[in-house]
């Protein structure tokens, strides 16, 4: 570091990370094959909040009131935002099918541009391109509380029947969820920020906890390849749990070396 330039083409201290990544990619490949070869498909347990998503959109349609979809205040460097974009396209497809009004205020301008595209496409696929209103997906301001002010204003004035929160949320979570609770909307949240989960749990009807947000983005598609990624994650979790237990037993027997393999630089 400092003045001398690094000329190595591989960092040996990161070998364990590379092996970890390759293992995960292998799990992914195996599960994709499994998903395609087995007739019944992979078993993935249902996620309660997702069924509620359909019901909420249905109820909004009956009531003739809009659905408000809030993709969080993460930027693209947070993967929760990517999940929010994927889920938005499923939600849009559903509102397009049912002919329900959808509003998506965005915090991040890139996310707004992406969701605008996915939503248009969803309406086109549902043969309802005409029903898509320009301005349904809009950028507000990449300033946390200016965004919140605008979203809560929309909640109070347009009275959406369902508020769907998906993505990375920070302090604003409670502000929006409590305002939504006040207006009596059905509220469904999914968030990968552990600190904000308690607020969604307290103020929403259903909450996808942590990684369920990511699982939801795969689950909603119901494509074998997507489901395979959930199974691959489960394998990795099982491997991690086994590694932890094994390492603890080995270190109790006086061999702490195994645990050190997990250290990274």
């Amino acid at each position, binding site marked *: 570091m400092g003045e001398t330039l690094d000329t190595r083409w591989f960092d040996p201290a990161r070998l364990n990370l590379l092996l970890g990544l390759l293992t995960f990619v292998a799990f992914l490949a195996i599960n994709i094959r499994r998903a395609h070869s087995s007739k019944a498909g992979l078993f993935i347990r249902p996620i309660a909040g997702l069924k509620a998503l359909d019901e909420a959109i249905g109820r909004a349609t009956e009531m003739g009131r809009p659905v408000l979809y809030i993709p969080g205040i993460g930027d693209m460097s947070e993967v929760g935002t990517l999940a929010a974009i994927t889920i938005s396209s499923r939600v849009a497809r559903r509102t397009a099918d049912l002919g329900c009004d959808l509003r998506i205020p965005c915090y991040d301008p*890139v996310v707004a541009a992406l969701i605008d595209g996915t939503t248009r496409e969803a309406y086109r696929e549902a043969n309802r391109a005409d029903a898509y209103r320009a301005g349904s997906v809009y950028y507000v301001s990449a300033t946390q509380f200016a965004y919140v002010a605008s979203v809560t204003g929309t909640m109070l004035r347009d009275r959406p029947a369902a508020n769907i929160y998906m993505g990375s949320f920070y302090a604003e979570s409670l502000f929006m969820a409590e305002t939504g609770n006040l207006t009596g909307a059905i509220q469904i949240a999914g968030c990968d920020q*552990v600190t904000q989960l308690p607020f969604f749990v307290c103020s929403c009807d259903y909450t996808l906890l942590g990684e369920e947000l990511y699982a939801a983005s795969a689950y909603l598609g119901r494509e074998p390849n997507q489901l395979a990624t959930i199974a691959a994650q489960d394998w990795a979790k099982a491997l991690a749990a086994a590694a932890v237990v094994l390492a603890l037993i080995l270190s109790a027997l006086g061999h702490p070396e195994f645990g050190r393999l997990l250290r990274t630089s």
Partner: protein
Amino acid sequence: MRFGPLVVTFLTGATLIAIFFIPHHRAQETQSIILEWADVVYAFALVLGSLTLWTMHQKKVRQRGEGWFYSAVTLVSLAGMTILGVVQGVSADTVVGRVYNMVNAPLASTMFSLLAFFIASAAFRAFRARNVEATLLLVTAIVMMIGRVSIGEFIWKGFPPLTEWLLDVPNLAAKRAVALGIGLGAISTALKIILGIDRSYLGRG
């Protein structure tokens, strides 16, 4: 038609993963350049977003729709801040800097402080001992609220260590598992996009 963009995503994604494992200075410099480009793309996305914001409110003002006056407020402040900021700069001694401290900063911190009210009303409404789970939630929260402030120590010396224990043991255990799950979910979501398994972000539902 979408094949091209998919290749672009794959190539940039794969390159950045590879760079992580390559300490060579050329690789690191390449990464800096790519990230700088990303900043520029983001800046243009801001322009795009602000233009749509402008059009939306301009339409309301022109049609004299409900609440058009408020849209006019947005238009004036948006145009004013942008033009002055581009011409004069944004540091604390400029008009924009002053407006920021006089308008944006107090609005942001007051909005934020409203959470103190909401957290009290949410606690009152949701913390009811309806079942085991809800009871655990409510008891931990109460211990935490009392134990973290000075008055907790007056009531019982054991409160502060108990809150530490709650944070260090059950909280740590749960958060570690959640963090691991989120990590795996995030990696697989990102890989799905790089490998083209999930294309919905490009507009395919």
